[in-house]
């Protein structure tokens, strides 16, 4: 119905998505948990929880803490490992018929390459999202975004191993996000996604203890939306490249703001925790917004901010 009123299809680099509304890595598990709350088949795409080669236990708890209009998490890439993901998680997702984007994380360039090579062989994936921005691991993670040449090399190594479209997930914990986006594109990625979480911390003053066992965590939610929007806008202005925008998107109008700032698609993250139907609701609200504004195809919003 909504598809009749507004053309939601978007082209994000080589990726053709039925709608610009994706769900962000790590906030939607491997999809199954939200099946009873959201029509998974109507999603623009699902970005999986980060996958590593070996299973990872993740960090000790407490792993989440609420802050003002935001939350901290220090999950630490807990996941059952590549083999189990391929055997047990991806079949369900691929069966859905929506674009499935697997988020991959490693400690070394070789690990990223292996992940890309193995996942490149899985039938039916839409793209890989190269997570070089996790703030919650001791090795790898966002450190890769702080060394431009290493980042370029990493993406190139992944590029060598697979024909799948590559999305590089950028860290906001950098002085300037543009060179990292550039390095990702130079390395052979077609799309950048941003932002991952910002390094943050909360303290229990009475017990004189950090609230998270990992001490610091990643900040997400409405609190970071202005930061995310500014970064999307900077990258769009500088590079005009395909961007998947995220960071505090809770409403259709939030999604529209990211598109206007230059994103070709967006992802809903923390919002799903607050309202499990968010991914679907935001999509419907975006359709309403477009109808109200006389926007016939959502593609015309991208980068159309007037400054």
């Amino acid at each position, binding site marked *: 119905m909504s598809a009749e009123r507004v053309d939601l299809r978007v082209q994000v680099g080589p990726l053709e998505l039925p709608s610009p509304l994706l769900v962000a890595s*790590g*906030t*939607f*598990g491997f999809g199954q*948990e*939200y099946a*009873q*709350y959201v029509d998974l088949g109507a999603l623009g795409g699902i970005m999986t*929880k980060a996958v590593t080669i070996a299973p990872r*236990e*993740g960090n*000790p*708890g*407490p*792993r*989440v*803490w*609420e*802050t*003002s*209009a*935001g*939350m901290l*998490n220090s*999950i630490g890439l*807990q996941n059952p490992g590549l083999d189990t993901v391929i055997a047990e998680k991806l079949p369900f997702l691929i069966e859905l018929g929506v674009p499935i984007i697997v988020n991959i994380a490693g400690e070394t360039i070789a690990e990223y390459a292996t992940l890309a090579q193995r996942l490149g062989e899985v039938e039916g994936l839409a793209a890989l999202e190269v997570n070089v921005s996790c703030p919650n691991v001791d090795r790898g993670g966002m450190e890769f975004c702080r060394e431009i040449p290493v980042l370029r090399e990493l993406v190139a190594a992944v590029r060598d191993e697979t024909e799948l479209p590559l999305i590089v997930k950028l860290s906001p914990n950098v002085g300037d996000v543009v060179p990292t986006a550039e390095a990702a594109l130079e390395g052979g990625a077609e799309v950048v996604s941003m932002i991952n979480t910002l390094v943050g911390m909360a303290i229990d003053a009475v017990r004189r203890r950090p609230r998270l066992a990992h001490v610091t965590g990643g900040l997400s*939610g*409405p*609190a970071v939306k202005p930061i995310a929007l500014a970064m999307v806008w900077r990258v769009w202005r500088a590079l005009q490249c395909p961007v998947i925008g995220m960071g505090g998107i*809770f409403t259709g109008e939030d999604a529209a703001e990211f598109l206007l700032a230059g994103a070709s698609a967006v992802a809903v993250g*923390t919002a*799903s*925790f*607050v*309202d*499990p*139907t968010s991914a679907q609701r935001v999509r419907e609200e975006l359709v309403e917004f477009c109808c109200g504004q006389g926007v016939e195809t959502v593609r015309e919003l991208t980068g159309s901010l007037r400054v």
Partner: protein
Amino acid sequence: MAHETAEVVWNESITQWHYLLALKTKHAAAAAQPGQFIHVRVGPTHDPLLRRPLSVLRTDPGTGQLWVLVRVVGRGTRLLAEMEPGARLDIMGPLGRGWPEPPPQGDLILVAGGVGVAPLIFWAEVLQSSYPASHVLSIFGAAHEGELACWLELAARSDEFYVATEDGSAGEKGLAVDLLRVYLDQRRVGAVYACGPRGMLAAAARLCARASVPCYVAMEQWMGCGIGACLGCVVPAAGGGYVRVCTDGPVFRADELDWEVLVQ
């Protein structure tokens, strides 16, 4: 669909810090099992942001009413305490894994610490109605008398009922687990069900392990999603690794968990 808008039917302040809320639900009351929880959105704005988990205290499937006991500890619970009848509340639930089927033999001991009494009241009620042959012995412990909210609800649903307070203001002076130790010795116990502070649960787990009695604990942990997707709510598992309180629990067999790490 475990997501609905419930209505606050009434909200009664039962101590300075405890509020008993009755919610009118379409689905949750009919589906809830003892030990499960609902995940409640406490306000319409982005602050507070996340939902708050609350144990189901009891339900009336006929009228669709579902009760929760709220101990005010911070902003979210304060907002809940201030809800007026008629207010609408966005809830998810029932969620999680509740108390398992009781063993056919032996006394069933329920150990409640403070606001941990809520899921045990529901459990005692179901034991009474669905397992009429069971013998339920309940122990309610708290720092002082003022923290024994809803004790009558638990007492009324138990065959025996004992109280311990740390300052001796009600019942025995001491801890709930001190009484647990006594009854584990004296009775033939089929299983122990405990909910309360982590230290209490650890002590109960230890005592039960020593007495070779199955022990079940309802755990708490800060939560993101409440449905198993974010991996935020973990506690350490006995064999290494972690389990999620929201979907693997909140009720665990005590020997599923790593108590050494838990009480650090």
